[in-house]
């Protein structure tokens, strides 16, 4: 287990360094002055600042030296300076990260729970009207753009019905504390988390249904049936436990992609996370922030995958430590 863990940590580190090198290449390959990109186009008005940047990153030195400067800078936590916001990029991102983790975590839990539930229901009553409804809905939500679902649910639940708040993470100026505040945030969380999760609900529903049907055709299920095990118990203990594993595998690989989807959701709901930060950086051409968010997103994904890998071995001990 230890050597496996170490090996996985090594792999994760390689990926993170790879992303940093990719960022560096993007700065170098982009049309225009790399210093202007490092400063963000908004900041290009200040020649003194650009001169400082050139010196700091040694932009007049050979490329490998530049790469080394950039790499060692990033690895010591220097993601650059946001000229626009007048703060270091890292502190800007760290301040916003918890909101994104809350949103994506909630969306992930929602999509996995509902996806498995609907998938089991569809497989259990295969061929019935319920099955048709579930599979059709899954097909539709699988094809719906995330940001459009978000806008349409704001239209329905916030503007027309007035049930849920359309913007922000908590009621501004309400000054809630403790449980009252947690409830307020939860209330604001419902729409963003559900609209972000719906696409994945559709994915997991389809996956669970297919996997359940596959397992239901296996011999040990027939044996259980022949022994007279009640149907409910067969579904729950015999089929589901085996069918849910591929769903978990896929979910753990997909968990990271939720962070990408969060860019869209946070833009629609003005959710104060790194996705919204990325959108603002796009609007202001604040490239250091843009690249910083990309790097942090990749790191989060690598960490999530790492944890999922370890958990998976606990869930399914049959998997060898390879």
């Amino acid at each position, binding site marked *: 287990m230890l050597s496996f863990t170490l090996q996985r940590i090594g792999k994760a580190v390689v990926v993170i360094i790879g992303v940093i090198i990719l960022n560096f290449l993007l700065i170098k390959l982009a049309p225009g002055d790399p210093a202007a990109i490092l400063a963000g186009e908004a900041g290009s008005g200040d020649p003194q600042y650009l001169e400082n940047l050139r010196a700091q990153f040694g932009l007049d030195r050979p490329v490998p030296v530049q790469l080394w400067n950039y790499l060692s800078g990033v690895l010591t936590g220097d993601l650059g300076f946001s000229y626009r916001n007048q703060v270091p990029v890292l502190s800007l991102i760290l301040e916003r990260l918890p909101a994104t983790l809350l949103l994506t975590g909630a969306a992930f839990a929602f999509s996995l729970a509902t996806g498995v539930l609907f998938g089991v229901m569809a497989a259990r009553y295969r061929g019935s009207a319920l099955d048709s409804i579930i599979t059709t809905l899954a097909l539709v939500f699988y*094809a*719906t*753009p995330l940001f459009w679902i978000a*806008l349409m649910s704001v239209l329905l639940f916030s*503007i027309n019905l007035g049930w849920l708040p359309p913007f922000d993470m908590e009621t501004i100026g309400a000054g809630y504390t403790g449980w009252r505040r947690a409830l307020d945030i939860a209330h604001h969380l419902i729409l963003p988390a559900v609209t972000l999760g719906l696409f994945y609900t559709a994915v997991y529903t389809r996956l669970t249904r297919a996997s359940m049907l596959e397992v239901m055709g296996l011999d040990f299920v027939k044996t259980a049936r022949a022994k007279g095990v009640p149907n409910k118990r067969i579904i729950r203990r015999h089929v589901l436990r085996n069918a849910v594993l591929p769903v978990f595998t896929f979910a753990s690989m997909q968990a990271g992609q939720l962070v990408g989807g969060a*860019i869209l959701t946070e833009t629609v709901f003005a959710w104060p996370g790194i996705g919204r930060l990325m959108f603002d950086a796009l609007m202001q051409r604040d*490239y250091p922030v*843009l690249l910083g968010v990309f790097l942090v997103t990749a790191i989060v994904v690598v960490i999530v995958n790492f944890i999922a890998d370890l958990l998976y071995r606990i869930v399914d001990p049959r998997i060898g430590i390879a």
Partner: protein
Amino acid sequence: MQNLKRFSQNYGAVLGLVILGLIIAMALAAPLLFPGNPWRTVAMPLLRPMENPDFLLGTDMLGRDIAAGIAHGAKVSLLIGVVSTLVAVLIGVSIGALAGFYGGRVDDLLMRFTEFFQIIPAFAMAVVLVAIFSPNIVSITLAIAVVSWPGVARLVRAEFLSLREREFVQAAIVIGQSGPRIIMTQVLPNAISPIIVTASLMVATAILTESALSFLGLGDRNMMSWGFMIGAARTMLREAWWMSFFPGLAILLAVLAINLIGEGINDLMNPHLRGRKK
């Protein structure tokens, strides 16, 4: 012929074909139905749908015809969807074929490379690529291709790994055919059906990604697109729901149609899966 018949019995796939056919017809007929530039102001701003029979889907805050935007936007979505998928398939097949056929160290190296691209969050990377290389139709197409090839590469590699051991490939090696020739004439033709299935589903994902990029303002400024229309309508949601509703419906229908067709092809090409749905 029998395949055609079987395909026509799959109602979902036929429905998909009909919808996609209508969308393609709309894209082709856009210059005739809505002559002139879709960015042009043609009527009073914020006409509601049905309010004026000439502008059935209403107009936006600058008096642009929503229906004209949707018709002209179809071209961009379909074009980027298809071209970026072709590029992604080209990259994916090349890397997957080399890795699967030669194996060993080449395989190791190429698969590490593929894994790397699979781990980093696809959409965030597409955003960064398009933003840095300034948004235009080429950079958008390439960015989508760059984030979507790894799936193809893994699939092709797996196919090649198993096909490589088959007798007809071994025979080709024995009679002295060169590696590239075996790949092109022996192995690839036998791996083509899963590639087609994946590619058809990838077009749908590519259209979704393109719409998401242009929703964020990363679309080609000279071309009307569905995602852009929704992005522009975002702040007008309270006043004019139709501005974002209809373009979104267009995306939904296009993606749904392509997914249905893709699944139809899949059923057709994997006979052993047939009947599992019923």
